Each structure stands twice: as structure tokens, then as C-alpha cells.
């Protein structure tokens, strides 16, 4: 079991980490763009995105399941019950969270900076680049929050991964399985390990961010 726990831990970090990194590649520019634009349309979009933060993970899992299953439109890709399907699902889960966080940083705290850039005729692309560089730490802070959300979710991991031992089994699916088997002690142990791992990783990322 100790070997399997390490296997599960590494897979959990890989899947949730990949999902978070993937989500930030589009969420950070989009969050900055919405913050720069800050008009009625962008405020409506951000309101919808804020609602999507609370979307049940099983709903994302169900929708992607229907798309990725054999009879679904992307069934030919054979992604269902693979770590890649879990990465796709978790990146969708994390996206609204990161966008919303980045938007708050830009629209809430950078009005003068945006005006200064506008007065010097900066293009949208230049503004996104400068604002990203200026708030880089906080932008990656949003990725850390996304990672925590992905690491702790169950619905997507279960529906798209299927909890296959040695392939898609992650912390949350293992805990759920052990509870179903009545192995509460092991489930609690795994839960504590997940919590410690989460705290440890987040602390390392934050310390690296401060040092930089």
C-alpha cells in the first residue's frame, strides 16, 4: 500500500497540476482582457463566470462523459477513462476560478495603471503583457488556488477517470472507494495525506513566489 500511495500521490499531482497549468494559459489572458475592457458586456461575462465557479463537478463530468464516450462526438479520440480526460475536465473546472481571481486583481486594483497605459496608446496585447508582468505573483497565486480546487475534486475524476488502479486512481477517488468498502481508517489516513500534501505543495509554491 505505501508504494501505491506514492503512485496515487504522483498521479494526483500530475493530473491536477497539468489541468491548472493548462487552465492558466487561457484564463490569465482572458481575466486580464476582461479587466481591461471593464464595460457592461465584460461585467455580464464575469457575472456568468462567477456563477460557473460553483458548478457541480459531476455536471462537468457528465457533460464531458457524453462528449468523450464511444457514441459521443469525440469518442473516436478514446480519451475516456484516461488521465487526459481528467486533465481536460479539471482544467474546465479551474478556468472560471482563475479568470475571476485575475479579473478582480486587474479591474479592482489597476484602474490608474490601465488608464496610464491607454494614455500611451498601448495595444490590448501590450496591456495584457505589462499587467501580467506587474501582477505575476498574484496571477500564479490564482493558479495555486486552481490547483487546490482540482486536487480536491471527486466528480470529474470519478466519471472521466473511472478510478482504474494504476491508471486513473487519484487521492479523492481512492478515499471514496475505501469508504464504500468500509475501510474508514485508511480513508481518513489518505485524507490527512492529501491535506498535508496540499499544504506542502502550496507552501513551496508560495515560498518560491516570494523569493522571486
Amino acid at each position, binding site marked *: 500500500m505505501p508504494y501505491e500511495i506514492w503512485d496515487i500521490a504522483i498521479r494526483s499531482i500530475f493530473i491536477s497540476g497539468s489541468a491548472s497549468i493548462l487552465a492558466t494559459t487561457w484564463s490569465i489572458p482572458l481575466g486580464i482582457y476582461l479587466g481591461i475592457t471593464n464595460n457592461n458586456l465584460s461585467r455580464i461575462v464575469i457575472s456568468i463566470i462567477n456563477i460557473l465557479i460553483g458548478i457541480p463537478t459531476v455536471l462537468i463530468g457528465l457533460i464531458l462523459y457524453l462528449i468523450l464516450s464511444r457514441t459521443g462526438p469525440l469518442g473516436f479520440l478514446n480519451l475516456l477513462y484516461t488521465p487526459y480526460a481528467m486533465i481536460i475536465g479539471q482544467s474546465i473546472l479551474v478556468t472560471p476560478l482563475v479568470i475571476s481571481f485575475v479579473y478582480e486583481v486587474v479591474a479592482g486594483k489597476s484602474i*490608474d*495603471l490601465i*488608464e*496610464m*497605459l*491607454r*494614455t*500611451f*496608446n*498601448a495595444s490590448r496585447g*501590450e496591456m495584457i503583457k*505589462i499587467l501580467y508582468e*506587474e501582477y505575476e505573483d498574484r496571477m500564479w497565486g490564482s493558479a495555486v488556488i486552481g490547483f487546490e480546487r482540482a486536487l480536491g475534486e471527486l466528480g470529474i475524476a470519478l466519471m472521466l477517470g473511472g478510478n482504474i488502479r494504476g491508471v486513473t486512481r487519484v487521492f479523492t477517488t481512492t478515499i471514496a472507494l475505501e469508504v464504500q468498502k468500509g475501510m474508514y481508517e485508511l480513508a481518513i489516513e489518505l485524507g490527512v495525506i492529501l491535506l498535508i500534501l496540499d499544504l506542502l505543495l502550496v507552501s513551496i509554491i508560495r515560498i518560491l513566489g516570494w523569493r522571486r
Partner: protein
Amino acid sequence: MIELINVSFKYTDKLVIKDVSVKWGSGLHLIKGPNGSGKTTICKIISGLLPPDRGYVYIDGVDVYSGESSKILKDVVYVHDKPVILNRSVYDNLILGARLLKRNVNRLKNLVEFFGLYDILDINASELSAGYKQLISLSRAFIVRPRYLILDEPFTNLDTKFRDKVIEYIVKEYRENTVIVATHTTYLDRYADTIRKIHKGKLV
């Protein structure tokens, strides 16, 4: 030539700028008034940063809030009352405007010498005093040398030495351009071509 025609602006249902019509040609023009009188709002409206609820703003005959304004707005620079500084070196902050507007930085050397900024060029500007930040913020606009320079309370954080230097620079270098300064102080009064007072959202 900057021209405002019947410009009004509402802020959360309160009319802060009321039916303002004014023309400013080249020279130094002051907008004076106490805090909260609408000076910043007028400056931002002129600079193309804040569309008015009513009325028109023309610069050299071009409607600032029309689709054709991008070219003329390259010649309009607004400097905030609170200095806006990037978490970068003084040098990077100084050349930012010129870099974005794709202008050369020929004036940088003279400006750095004039204001005595040479020794701090490599220092992170966000760690400097409020006075230096204000000076960097102003110098960033001076390097670009826009035809229309809009300064909002430019002396707030400056000590006497820097304030006199800024006044000397504006008076010496900007005679042929249009400089609009919103201020509640009297430092520039004797150099100004026109002085307008803003009272309860109206220019008088």
C-alpha cells in the same frame, strides 16, 4: 486646439460636470478648483479616458470619442495626480511611454540630467519616495513630448526643489504645445495663458 461643447458627466446619478463649453489653444492653461470640484473628471474626458454623458470633445477638429480618434490620441498624454509606477527600474518606467508610442528617447539624457535622476536609474521605482514617483510619472510624459499634455495636480508630492524644476521645464519646453494643468495651487498662475475656475461642475 482642444474644444469641449456642452459636455456633461454624471457619476452615480450626480451631475459632476455641467454643460461645459471651452476652447484651449497652444500655451499653458490652468483649471483651478478645490478637491472634488470635477478637475480630474474634466482632465480624463479631454484625454479620451472617460466618455462624457453628453456633449462633444474635439482635438484638432477630431471627435475624441469617435472611431477616428486613435491617431490624435497618440498626441494626448494624461498624467495622474497619484503617480502610477510599475514595479520596475526607474529607467524602465521613464521609457515606458516612448516605447509604447514607438517614439525615440532622445530627450531621456537631458531630462535625467535636468532632474538629477542619473544615480537612481537602476533602482526599482516602486521603492522610491512619493516625490520621486511623481517626478518619474511626469518625466515619462515629458520624454514623449506630446502636443497635448494634461497634468492632474502635478505638484502634490513634490518638494520645493523638484516643484521649481518641473515648473521651469514646463514653462521652457512646452510653450508651443498645449498644456492643461488641473491644480488647486497658485504656483503656475503667473506663467498661465488662461486660468479657469471650476465650481460645482461648471467652468467659470
